[in-house]
């Protein structure tokens, strides 16, 4: 993730020495041919992924059409498939994750870029990036054995008692606290996307020119006023991009979510204490169970929807991040 974020900020290189000597001898032509051919495999691979998924998804897409996205019934026996509950689970868990991780992640980035003493900068960056290196399955294990009991025993009852009776909002915190539900999945996801949001926001904050800060400080502003009025507005679209990249990561997370979300209900209920499914966890759970062609096709359709959503989010995020990285002209 950090590498990707960095790449987004790399400016296009001017063609200078790289143009020299091209095509001079046979070795050059062969070498250029080979690396071009290998590179050309990358778009082909993506095309292959899309085509293959589309072929397998076709039977379900033809049979259910638009109702595949709006129906909640997922019944292999009656052969009725609608992914609305999975989409709902994905959206809700990802939004919880974003709500928790975005403020903390931007705070971490501000600490590293603006507040931290120089000697602390690298260690803190490194530690937060370590969060990204921990495999998804270990988050799942930790969530399953450590976080879920805490959520069930302490956090969820607390939320229920304090917010449960508030009109509208209370509906989110109703029903028995089970510890394997949308809320727990969202909390685990928030930890997993925190390093993404931090790393990208940090790069964005670094791209803000110092003249922005100096101008504001020279006017007598405090450090916080400088950040709020001169730094953050300049970096805003990039920070939104960072949040969307985090959201995109949350949408596709599989193992950690599969272990804590409960994998049971296919109904849409307002309570966050509902055990549910996300698109990714539904695929992981049911892929090997699919015994009929239409059932299998429906699962691949879910994968296709997931692919489309992830692609759109990534493109949107990168456009936003580029805008800041390119400088003030693009604002």
């Amino acid at each position, binding site marked *: 993730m950090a*590498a990707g974020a960095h790449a987004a900020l790399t400016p296009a290189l001017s063609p200078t020495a790289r143009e020299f000597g091209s095509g001079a001898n046979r070795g050059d032509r062969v070498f250029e041919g080979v690396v071009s051919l290998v590179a050309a495999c990358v778009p082909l*691979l993506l095309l292959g992924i899309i085509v293959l998924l589309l072929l*397998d998804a076709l039977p379900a897409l033809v049979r259910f059409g638009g109702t595949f996205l709006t129906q909640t019934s997922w019944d292999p026996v009656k052969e009725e498939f609608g992914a609305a509950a999975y989409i709902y689970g994905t959206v809700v868990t990802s939004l919880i994750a974003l709500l928790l991780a975005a403020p903390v992640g*931007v705070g971490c980035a501000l600490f590293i870029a603006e507040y931290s003493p120089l000697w602390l900068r690298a260690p803190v960056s490194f530690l937060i990036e370590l969060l990204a290196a921990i495999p*998804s*399955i270990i988050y799942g294990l930790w969530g399953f054995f450590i976080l879920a009991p805490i959520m069930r025993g302490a956090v969820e009852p607390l939320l229920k008692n304090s917010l449960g009776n508030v009109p509208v909002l209370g509906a989110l915190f109703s029903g028995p606290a089970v510890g394997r539900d949308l809320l727990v999945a969202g909390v685990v996801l928030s930890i997993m996307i925190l390093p993404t949001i931090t790393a990208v926001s940090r790069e964005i904050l670094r791209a803000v020119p110092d003249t922005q800060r100096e101008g504001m400080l020279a006017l007598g502003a405090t450090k916080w006023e400088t950040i709020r009025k001169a730094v953050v507005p300049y970096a805003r679209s990039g920070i939104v991009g960072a949040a969307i990249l985090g959201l995109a990561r949350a949408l596709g997370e599989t193992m950690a979510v599969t*272990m804590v979300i409960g994998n049971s209900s296919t109904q849409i209920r307002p309570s966050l204490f509902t055990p549910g499914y996300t698109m990714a966890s539904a695929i992981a759970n049911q892929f090997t169970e699919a015994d009929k062609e239409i059932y299998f096709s429906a699962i691949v359709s879910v994968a296709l929807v997931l692919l489309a959503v992830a692609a759109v989010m990534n493109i949107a995020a990168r456009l936003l991040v580029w805008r800041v990285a390119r400088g003030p002209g693009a604002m």
Partner: protein
Amino acid sequence: MSRWQRRRLINALAASVVVLCAAVAVAVLLIILGHVAIQGLPSLNVAFFTERPLPPGEVGGGVAPAILGTLEMLAVAATIGIPVGVATAIYLSEYGRGNLARAVSFTIDLIAGLPSIVIGVFVWAWLVRNVVGQYNGLAGGVALAIIMVPILTRTVEETLRIVPDPLREASLALGIPRWKTILRVVLPTAQAGVITGVVLSLARAGGETAPLLLTALGNQFFNLDLLQPTAALPIQIYNYARSPYADWQAKAWGGALVLITLIGVLSALTRWAIARRTRVV
């Protein structure tokens, strides 16, 4: 309270909130690592690393086939992923211009953003169903290679881009052909970046579970045949964690500790390699 005092108070409050955010993030990391270490250590012993899993109910055994399987599949992934990733990086940095370069660069980002489970579904449909006909380790390795390539390409490409042009020019001025310049001058100069990319992508691939569930499936026995279902450490952790047996659950934590240590050692090795071999970068 005067206006100036209020502004200073808000300034101090904001600073403490920011510090708190960083502290929370670091604390969460330490808590998770701490839990893995404390829960995982007791189940580590010689048998854990050398024996195969025992049937439920029998205490003992180990996860050796899973460790072996993970190494097998990482070897497959590295064999495919490293040449492809490095060649793509060379193309993007040294040759890439025009529509193909833009398409490659764009799709690298998209593949990097693909949920790994989607890659699993793709490799299943392609290799497991159509080519081999059953779950197999080779397909697992290919899935991991697809996850490696974007990370590797981006890291290597960035390093190649910051290799100074005068180095290329000096080499070309001596009459050395361009391909030799790239392989003998540019790539060695970017060595640290290449090593970082390889290790980063291997560490990431080694922890992947979801695509392996759909391709390698897992196996309780030692297996060197890559066309058979193959065990992997993350799959073993997943299966053990979901089991109702205390002994298996303890082994899941042990596996998690081994996996994290493996990734930690890989990362530490990279830092060491970079510190020793850094020339320009």
